């Protein structure tokens, strides 16, 4: 198994891939999935740090982060489907009109 720095480097690479995906993709669902990748990179760094320091409480915190992620994904998908029903387009730029 790798050392702590290897896991942190993997987490940094995954976070950057997710950030690039959020910036270059147009499909709202794929943007939400890239946000999930970034969140998972953060969780990986948290787990690696907590285990390297021998903290049990970290695993409980990661459990809470996963709960919040589940709630966030369900609400985000509900918003996307509702907007899609109003005007059938998944391009995130076309959602700029919903502020009026």
């Amino acid at each position, binding site marked *: *198994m*790798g*050392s*702590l*720095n*290897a*896991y*942190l480097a*993997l987490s*940094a*690479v*995954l*976070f*950057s*891939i997710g*950030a*690039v*995906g959020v*910036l*270059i*993709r*147009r*499909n709202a*669902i*794929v943007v*939400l*999935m*890239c946000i*999930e*990748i970034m969140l*998972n990179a953060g*969780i*990986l760094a948290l*787990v*690696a740090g907590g*285990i*390297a320091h*021998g903290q*049990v*409480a970290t*695993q*409980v915190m990661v*459990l*809470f982060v*996963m*709960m919040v*992620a*589940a*709630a966030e*994904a*369900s*609400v985000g*998908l*509900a918003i996307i*489907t*509702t907007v*899609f029903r109003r005007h059938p*387009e*998944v*391009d995130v730029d076309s959602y700029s009109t919903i502020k009026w």
Partner: protein
Amino acid sequence: MSLLFIVTATIAIVSALAVVLFRKPIYSILSLIICLYALGANYILMHAEFLAIVHLIVYAGAIMVLFLFVVMLMNLNHEGPVFRHRFTQLISVIIGSSLAMVIIAAISKTQSMGMPTSSVSTAQIGTVLFTDYLLPFELSTILFLASVVGVVITGKETR
């Protein structure tokens, strides 16, 4: 660094790149499931077996199925361009790679720690969860109730 870590990390990075680069959202979802499985394998390598199982059940089992249902039932494929403008792509890749390089450079300056070889038992995690973190645990049920009500109200057909 062990061979298993290199294999799982490579699978995770390649499938995360595939999520960004596949043109159809359904392929992106399937490669994101592979990425989550590789991360679960990483948790097992770190001796966090409980978290690995919870990660697979919650992410690959629940959230990804939700994504799959939405894409398959709503037919969210769209015809227009998949990626943004060339110039935006170039800028984004520069931003992303410099972000990764800065973080990795900062990490390489620090002193690395070895990972422990024994795992924390699930009973210990449960003890901490139901003693020190009981109030946040109860509050998370309120969060879930709020999100369920929000999803139902948002998704309701309004004429």
